[in-house]
């Protein structure tokens, strides 16, 4: 069989991942539509770090509070199962989670199993074209309910935006060893409108603490 185009010196094989991936057999796959009380968030980042190291950082779920917003505590209760506490002060919700798929260096999938949140998600780690790092894609679904309400009313972020911000924190932490922050810096007197703006801009949400270890390195460049 003849190929219509042979001269493509740097072309990569097409990604083959389905599920949370963004392509199927060369076609772009848009994010799932929100319907029937379910909302979806899909987001991806390019991280200058090794695929396996990033997988391991994500898989270490007891350290998720270091980079996920509003997660107070995660305890591994059994192999592949964990207990999650979200919120701050006396306003918290809790749920259990189980890992559905665990492929080192490639993919982790999970879902909640009881408790006050109904969520499921998947994270995929793929080599970026040309060895430029790792593309990390997260697909997460929520059923609107207590979790979404808490997020929107108490926390001030829409769940979709929270997924985007958490992946951004993960990237910053992996690449630099810290999460950028301004909370705690000096300022002059804040008026009424400044307070409203802080809420509107999501600045009242506590930035996760980040790690106290150095950045992951070992990317191909």
């Amino acid at each position: 069989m003849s190929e219509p185009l042979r001269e493509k010196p740097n072309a990569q094989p097409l990604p083959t991942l389905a599920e949370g991936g963004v392509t199927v057999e060369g076609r772009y796959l848009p994010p799932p539509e929100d319907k029937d009380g379910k909302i979806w968030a899909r987001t991806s980042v390019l991280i200058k770090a090794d695929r396996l190291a990033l997988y391991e950082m994500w898989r270490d779920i007891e350290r998720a509070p270091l980079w996920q917003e509003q997660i107070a505590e995660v305890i591994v209760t059994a192999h592949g199962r964990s207990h999650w506490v979200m919120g701050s002060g006396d306003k918290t919700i809790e749920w259990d989670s189980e890992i559905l798929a665990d492929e080192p260096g490639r993919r982790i999938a999970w879902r909640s199993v009881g408790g006050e949140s109904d969520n499921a998600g998947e994270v995929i780690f793929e080599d970026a074209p040309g060895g430029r790092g790792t593309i990390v894609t997260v697909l997460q679904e929520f059923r609107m309910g207590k979790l979404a309400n808490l997020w929107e009313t108490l926390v001030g972020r829409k769940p979709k935006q929270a997924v985007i911000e958490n992946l951004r924190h993960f990237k910053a932490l992996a690449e630099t060893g810290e999460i950028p922050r301004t909370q705690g810096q000096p300022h002059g007197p804040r008026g009424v409108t400044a307070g409203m703006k802080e809420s509107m801009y999501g600045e009242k949400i506590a930035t996760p603490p980040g790690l106290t270890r150095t950045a992951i390195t070992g990317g191909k460049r």
Partner: protein
Amino acid sequence: MRALCWMGTSKVEVHTVPDPAILNPHDAVIKITRTAICGSDLHLFDGFIPTMEEGDILGHEFMGIVEEVGKDVSNLQRGDRVVVPFTIACGKCEFCQKKIWSACDNTNPNAHLMEAAYGYSGSGLFGYSHMMGGYAGGQAQYVRVPFANVGPLKLETDLPDEKILFLSDIFPTGYMAAENAQIQENDTVAVWGCGPVGQFAIASAFMLGAARVIAIDRLSERLEMARSIGAITVDYSEEDVSVLTALKDLTGGIGPDSCIDAVGLEAHSNQLQGIYDRIKTAVMLETDRPSVLRQAIQGVRKGGTVSIPGVYGGLLDKVPFGAAFGKGITMKMGQTNMHNYMKPLLERVEKGQIDPSYIISHRITLDQAPEMYKVWRDKEQSVTKIVIDPWAN
């Protein structure tokens, strides 16, 4: 400490605020010895840049002495003398590795605000709105510097602060403008705006091989300063002066090889289009007043380059894109990739090739700053550059 705070449009005040602290492992706290007011601070003062909050500490041009470092900062220690770039860069992301430092992925805590407006977020900046990170600025006695392992340039020289300070923004910004203008040996370059960035763009254009530089402004002291470093000046406010005709007259009818817009979004114009932009921005149908940009596109030669160090923020009306396409021009712009220029430009200062302090007209205390913002805005007292000693009384 004492710090200059933005308290609303056309309102800045000095307040006593808490001292900054180390918040992240790559932070440093700098005791500021000299800081300056930038032309782009006027865009904040005049309320052109959204997402400012009352109480924000302004200032993105500063230098000083390292007071304290975070645990992962190994290149600096207490007592080191440094000048700090106004863009904050992590040094590790795709963009920093490509040396497009002002596009850093990891330094804007409010990246989502800029993504909503621009598609993607650039780096965080000191004292320049919450869309750009919401970092406290350096018109103050101390400042927290994130990623101090990447940004601050350690100084081993005993040159005075005034010769070094402008490496924090305007000298590299003027230099990158000239570099973006793609100047070839013996080119003719036109520069709109003879404020500090325009001055350094003129100087840099000569350094990069320009044979002739045409400088355009309306303020006599700035035009005089431009002539003092070798430019031919055009005063657009003079009766019968048409900038486009002047550019043809001064280039044998072919136009300048490169045009540099060192003015940006608050351009003044004595033409009909200036009135048009005033009205449209006043009723919020337009965010920027791009009369200089229009002229630069119109004025540049066929196949020439328009370089834009002047700041634009939003949506522009009646930009002659047909002229840009018709002549096949190149346009280059953006926040300065500071980290590429600070060291080489410091070397030029050390060798005595340029003394950047020539632009300073006013030396003031922090308490004088609120009044001087108005002088700076209204271009009174022949002001060309204001430098603040935050510890002086």
